[in-house]
């Protein structure tokens, strides 16, 4: 009794033989190389993705730090301003003190110089007065001597005349 539907085991085996060759051939020639390429590319993209996420993480950390710095910047600015103002005030006060000292020193020196000048002038004036007095005295003496001499002479002349 034949197998219904004209089923032939020999032909079935021939088909299976064909199929085995095809499956093996396509696997080695097409499937495996393409899959390998896809996997390699996937690995590359995953690596790129990992690097990118790492960079993103770093960038986020930097951003966080920058944000923190920005957040503290106002406080720091105020703090620094206060510090600068204090320093400025301190410096102003020091300068003022120094200027006052300098002014006092200058005034003191000026007073001293003026005193010396006055003393010198006074000394000089005294000397001049003395000289003038001497001169005046001398003049007076000279004038009185000359008058006396003249009077003497006149008296002498008169005496001679009389004589």
């Amino acid at each position, binding site marked *: 009794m034949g197998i219904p539907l*004209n089923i032939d085991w020999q032909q079935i085996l021939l088909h299976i033989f064909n199929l085995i060759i095809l*499956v*093996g051939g*396509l696997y080695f*020639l097409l499937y495996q190389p393409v899959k390998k390429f896809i996997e390699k590319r996937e690995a590359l993209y995953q690596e790129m993705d990992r690097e990118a996420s790492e960079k993103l993480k770093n960038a986020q950390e930097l951003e966080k730090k920058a944000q923190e710095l920005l957040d503290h910047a106002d406080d720091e600015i105020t703090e620094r301003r206060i510090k600068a103002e204090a320093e400025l005030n301190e410096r102003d006060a020091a300068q003022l003190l120094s200027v006052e000292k300098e002014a006092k020193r200058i005034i003191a020196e000026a007073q001293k110089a003026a005193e010396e000048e006055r003393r010198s002038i006074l000394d000089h004036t005294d000397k001049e007065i003395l000289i003038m007095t001497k001169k005046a005295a001398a003049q007076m003496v000279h004038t009185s001597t000359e008058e006396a001499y003249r009077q003497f002479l006149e008296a002498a002349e008169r005496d001679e005349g009389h004589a």
Partner: protein
Amino acid sequence: MSKKRKIVSLVVWLALIVATLAGAILCGTGQRAETIQETMRDAVLHETNKVRLFGLLEVNPAVISSLVVVGILLAAALLIRIFFIPRFKRVPGRAQLLLEQLVGFFTDLGKGNSPHRYRFLNAYIFGVGVYIFFGTLFELLGLQVSTTHGNTIALPAPLSDINAAIAVGCFSYLVILIGGISANGLRGLGRTLKEFSLPISMSFRLFGALLSGLLVTELVYYYVGLSFVLPVVIAVLFTLLHALIQAYVLTMLTSVFYGEVTEAPRPKPKKSKKQLES
């Protein structure tokens, strides 16, 4: 395009249609070697038209179709492997994308349905999927061969022969069996044998689907005039569609059953003393 040229093109087109239709009607069908009944019966049973394989064996035309399809596919794969794959780019072009999609589709199908063990399964479903798809489209080529009776017949789709369908169905079952045994040993063998109807259902489903396509095509082309009523493009689209569907159905079924038999057994929850006492 000028108006005059348009008219000329239209006239030529209509003239060609009329001429071919008239030719088809006037020539008639000639002296046929077989009646439609004989043709259809032979398309199903392959009793009459046999082809000699290398002068050694008398085989059904589907065996020759199968050999030709396998030859063409392997030659194409070899050419692609040598000339195309080494030039693959990181950003794929259209052809590369198509190839990657094809490989990716079968990889995902195998992986999705059998997540425990899929390497061998993927290799198999890729091969068999491509075989079913291109094997079904092969009938569109209409390659002619001489039978042992001296008739000339067009080579059919390999899977329209029940022997080829049984080969694919049984081989798929064998793949599932191998997967089951290698993953779970005797348990896998038992699980696979439990689905004893699987090779029959897979074989006959494939055979029925492909045969229906073949019969419709035989019917249409037996009466030449019908090809004017039913445009050829519809037959092509029909073939293309069922090539896709059958390739998908068989690969999906194989993956699903492979996944079932290769799944690791779940440990039974230990019964507590209270449960045992009650």
